């Protein structure tokens, strides 16, 4: 399953790439994009693991860049 999720607040390219690489390591994640310019977060993960991956991703966002909010 693939979802496009908007991001609130702001994020720099540096943090975006940090978050990207951390989410990519999560179980069941096939592809992830954090676009600092358009403030969009694209998560592609296996159907059964998607919700877990999303919850984990939101935690990663909160950890690396608390100013950026996942509007899921």
């Amino acid at each position: 399953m693939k979802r496009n999720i908007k991001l609130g607040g702001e994020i720099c390219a540096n943090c975006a790439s940090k978050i990207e690489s951390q989410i990519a390591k999560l179980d069941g994640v096939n592809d992830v994009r954090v676009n600092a310019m358009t403030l969009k977060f694209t998560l592609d993960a296996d159907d059964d693991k998607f919700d877990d991956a999303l919850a984990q991703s939101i935690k990663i966002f909160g950890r690396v860049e608390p100013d950026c909010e996942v509007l899921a």
Partner: protein
Amino acid sequence: MSKGSQAPGAAASGGGAAARAKRPSVMTKRQVRWRNRIIVALALFACALVLERSGALAALFGTPGDVYAAFAIYLVPYLVSGYDVILKAFKGIVNREPFDEHLLMTIATLGAFALVLFPDTGPHMAEGAAVMLFYQVGELFQSYAVGRSRKSIADMMDIAPDYANVMRDGRLEQVDPDEVAVGDEFVVKPGERIPIDGVVTEGSSDVDTAALTGESMPRHAGEGDEVVSGCVNMTGVLTVRATKPFGESTVSRILELVENASDKKARTESFITRFARVYTPVVTGLAALIAVVPPLLFGLAWGDWVFRGLTFLVVSCPCALVISVPLSFFGGIGGSSRMGILIKGGNYLEALAHVDTVVFDKTGTLTNGTFEVVGVHPAGACPAPAEGDAAPEAAPADADELLRLAAHAEAFSTHPIAASVRGAYLKSGGAAIDQGAISDVSERGGHGVSARVDGHEVLVGNDRLMAQADVTSQPCELVGTILHVAVDGAYAGHIVIADVVKPDAAEAIARLHAAGVSKTVMLTGDRREVADSVASRLGIDECHAQLLPQDKVDQVERLLAAEPAKGRLAFVGDGINDAPVLTRADVGIAMGAMGSDAAIEAADVVLMDDKPSKIAAAIRISRKTMRIAWQNIVFALGVKVLVLVLAALGIANMWMAVFADVGVAILAILNAMRCMNVAKMAR
């Protein structure tokens, strides 16, 4: 918060509310709160400064008690302005992501306060508090500037319509375009954007393609015509039947493409991100060395060197780079999309800037790809072609009759050449084709056609057909496909048909050369004479004719191999049948893409209209964008290195360091915004 300090904050937020009412979403709520906090801290800081400088503290607490009192009163504005930074720094350590700007600022400013322990250097509390304050001012401004730029680029790209008018229960209702299914009808009023690709079922109007192509060019649309989403309906009301769902309509696809473009990073962008990860730890390490080594080894004053080390820390944040460089690319891509030039990624923009060879597939790029009659020459009257003239020539007296006979003989042929002969006949003012006058039509496979027109035996075809009929044909000096006509076994003349060169093709080539492209190459499946004539007329450097589709790939491979290390090769095609070559080239450019999914899919750069002159514009925009990105890199790093050196020598203070951090970032962001200004850059 003390009572006295609330007044300025409240007044400011009142003013902010008024401004927000006029222009919504200028500042986010978070930014407004942030700004108010800074104002409060500034007021507190001013009070502390007055108390200290006026000697009030010394009078109250005596020496050295006044130093500790000053420490306390500067700590208040410091904490008000910077408590969130300290908190984030702490969180960073807990989350094992310590090397961020927050930690660096925290160490630097707390360090400045801690210098109270080294009485030999004099107090730096004011500096500590001020650095935090101005760091926050800078960060706020930076956040605001980035937000604004991002929004204006996004607005610029936002050509998506918000609604579609659909007839429901006898009334027009505005619905989400996503709800309109294929086959549904919707109404587009004058001034509205067409939301979904479709076919006009009722009404007629002029539609403007400016949002897609960048140039205002009204096109007429009547019943049965296809209309492309994103165009603005100008004059009449149109009822349109959707032929595609909203998500697959032109406008959605373009938006998706441009938005995803920032996912594909240019080498410069990823270099900066990688660099930033190394830069911060290195500068932090240097700061530690500077603070510790000189006092330990040479017995120099601790306070002085610790302060120099702290100044280092302030400069070590890479924000200016990691924000402004991607913003430059985003601006360039967003801006060029407004001109109808879609660049699918920062990496392609970068490659485009280095293009030194442009290869054209002739048909559809330099020429229209449609065959048109360029000359009608009755027997014995074949004039020498005027230099560089492709327009139909002033034909001798019975040219009209020649064209009429040929058009009638070809009346039932489906060949494109026959269609252009009929088109030319009607355009020259000929009456409608009289089918009753035609009989005994027979196609002579690959050679031409024979028919009886008005009782005369008419042969229309190539020289082999003439040879078969024992008719001596006349050669023509015009280049193109020659259609000979024989009437009752006697040679009557010939009609010259050629692919017409686009009006701006020669200008396009000249502009490419002017933009520094060293080689232009034309590939075509057409005959050698035709190709050479077009190439020499347009000023193309190299021309390869009579190529099969796979030969074009070979030619591009050969040219790629001959490219110098830094040069890039662009291939320009019309997106039809040339996907393999488009993908093989460093940059594949497809043109005339409005409404053509295949072209949008296959290419790296998509020109919405079919003007070859846009290629030079795209290259210029890319180069300017790259130049601006590099300006930012050199400027930001230059200032930082300079301040680092000055700090190590003890010349730079924390104020300069704060400027090197946030000041440079703001200037770099403002510079990056110039990338949006594509109309000026394209020239």
